[in-house]
């Protein structure tokens, strides 16, 4: 098993510009079950062997897509997310970076009412190794196994996963939840799914400065999660008030510093790594030497 996506998940892709087409091909090569593309004006054509539609609603209706991934440029991405969700898919993965926060705050409410799950925006997507990848993660570094990974970032996820894979610790599903102040699903939503997943034996949460999501996750782990969890939080050198790349990575109060987050996680009994190398050691400890 794995969470949210597997080899049977029917995926459509919204936005087949340069990035969208490139990653469509990458996903298809990885084994993702892509059933449709959506691009206004390209309806009726086909790309990489799957049909393209003008609208998300038609694409979902004709192909039975259950999941959509958004590559639409920022000014049009908010509307594309709503189009995907209203087309009836169960999971929207928004890769697009730069969607206004106010628009996102409206969208998450509507998606909640529709009962649609949202990953992102501004995220690398998710991958269940050897089954399916929905997003832009480099498939080659992932390895099938018992570790769930939830991260706020992209390349740092790759660094963590690569070191885990090299040490022999494969992953059940790895998720980049997105670097914006308002995102769809957060640590707790994914943790709940990992808790129920038969394949996942341990979860790594990779956090960063800004907000208090890591503290919320720590509380949730203490109350609800029986599986071992390992933490890692970056941004010790970040000055207050400065946006460090991600729109959500701004120190805006004492709670949002690395020190506060690490202390809180440890207080709730979650071992926290200081470096990526230490994550591998802590995962080894958590799995009791199995891999």
């Amino acid at each position, binding site marked *: 098993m794995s969470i949210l996506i597997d080899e049977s998940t029917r995926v459509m892709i919204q936005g087949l510009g340069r990035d969208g087409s490139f*990653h469509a091909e*990458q996903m298809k090569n990885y084994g993702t079950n892509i059933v449709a593309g959506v691009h206004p004006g390209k309806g009726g054509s086909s790309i990489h062997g799957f049909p393209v539609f003008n609208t998300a609603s038609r694409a979902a209706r004709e192909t039975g897509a259950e999941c959509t991934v958004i590559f639409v440029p*920022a*000014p049009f991405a908010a509307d594309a997310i709503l189009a995907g969700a209203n087309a009836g898919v169960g999971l929207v993965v928004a890769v697009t970076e*730069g*969607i*206004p*926060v*106010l628009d*996102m*705050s*409206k969208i*998450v*409410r509507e998606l909640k009412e529709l009962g649609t799950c949202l990953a992102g925006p501004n995220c*690398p997507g998710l991958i269940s190794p050897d089954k399916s990848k929905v997003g*832009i*993660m*480099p498939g*080659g*570094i992932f390895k099938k196994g018992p570790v769930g990974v939830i*991260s*706020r*970032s*992209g*390349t*740092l*996820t*790759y*660094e963590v996963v*690569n070191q885990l894979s090299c040490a022999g610790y494969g992953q059940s599903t790895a998720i980049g939840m997105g*670097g914006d*102040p*308002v995102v769809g699903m957060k640590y707790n939503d994914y943790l709940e799914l990992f808790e129920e997943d038969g394949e996942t034996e341990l979860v790594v949460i*990779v956090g*960063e400065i800004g*907000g*208090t*999501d890591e503290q*919320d996750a720590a509380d949730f782990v203490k109350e609800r999660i029986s599986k071992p969890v390992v933490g890692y939080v*970056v*941004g*010790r*050198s*970040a*000055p207050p008030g*400065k*946006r*460090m*790349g*991600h*729109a*959500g*990575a701004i120190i805006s*109060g*004492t709670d949002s510093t*690395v020190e506060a987050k690490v202390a809180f996680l440890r207080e709730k009994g979650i071992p926290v790594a*200081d*470096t*990526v*190398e230490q994550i591998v050691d802590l995962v080894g400890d958590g799995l009791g030497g199995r891999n």
Partner: protein
Amino acid sequence: MKLEEFQAKILFREYGIPVPDGTMVNTSEEARSAAEEIGCPVVIKAQVQAGGRGKAGGVKLAKTPAEAYMAANAILGMDIKGFIVERLLVDPAVSIAGEYYVGITFDRRKKMPVMMASASGGVDIEKVAAETPEQIFFGEINPERGLRSFEAKQLAFQLFADKKKALATASVMMKLWDCFHGVDASLVEINPLAELEDGSIIALDAKIVLDDNAMFKHPIMEEMRLPTTSEQKELDARSHGLSYVQLDGNIGCMVNGAGLALATMDLIKHLGGTPANFLDIGGSSSPQKVIHAMELLVSDSNVKAVFINVFGGITRCDDVANGLVAALQEIKTDIPLVIRLAGTNEEEGIRILSDFGITALKDMTEGAREAIRLAGEGGDS
């Protein structure tokens, strides 16, 4: 993007929020004329994007135009938390009966905007939140419906028992929401929202932070950007697709991806070094981008060594290596470089660099150690 007070007050005025009828000036002479025109006493306020201006001496009362001239002279050029004062706001002085706080920002946990109101205005609101959180009242705002009149009144009556003042405050709150929503802000704040001796309500200070993601909707706001020297560097970087923040260490960092950049800086610190900057070159690896990034790093005179840490995902290591070779042929520098390449096509990337006479490492920790060692040597010579 943070606005200065005088800019925020211009927007407040457009949305009908009462503000003092002041003037922005650039020189002491202009401050004197403004004081004459407005009528004394006036308040001279440093325009910088930092809090605590009053404590730093950046706000002065002037009873005559001559005093306004002297106050302006004293404040212009002042360094307030690293910001040099280049502009002043001259506001008419008012008789204050009470100071309150009203603001709107995003509650990341609830994923919606929230209005905050407190009778403890005029002081640092984060201090109030930390020490006496019961003095701050919160009202969630449904972003689709907006702030409704009854919701504003509920909050306003927490601050005032008097109906006239409560209704005036509720009206300011509604307009503040219109402003937040209208300009796509991530924060709007009035601190203090003052009650004057005649019972009227007025915004004596104004703070607006615009959502950078929403600037495409409001191109006109871009004209309000008044970058400081260090920000100018960050803006130039952004125009080349780079995300850059200068710090005060001596190891220049160039990394692909924000999270990995933060992890790289942390690792340097963990091993006893000090990062000179945050620099995310993003996913693309065009030689031009790498050249700009190198230029940025070597222009910082504190930098004694450069650590380039790339994890090739979608970005291919051979592309990055080609970019680096092009950059190093164009930029001649004596600053020692440490390059770590891992991920997609790492063997090919390492070979390209090796042909150019550069040894690339595969391990991030090893790379950080080497950069710290080289920076230490540079410091001794």
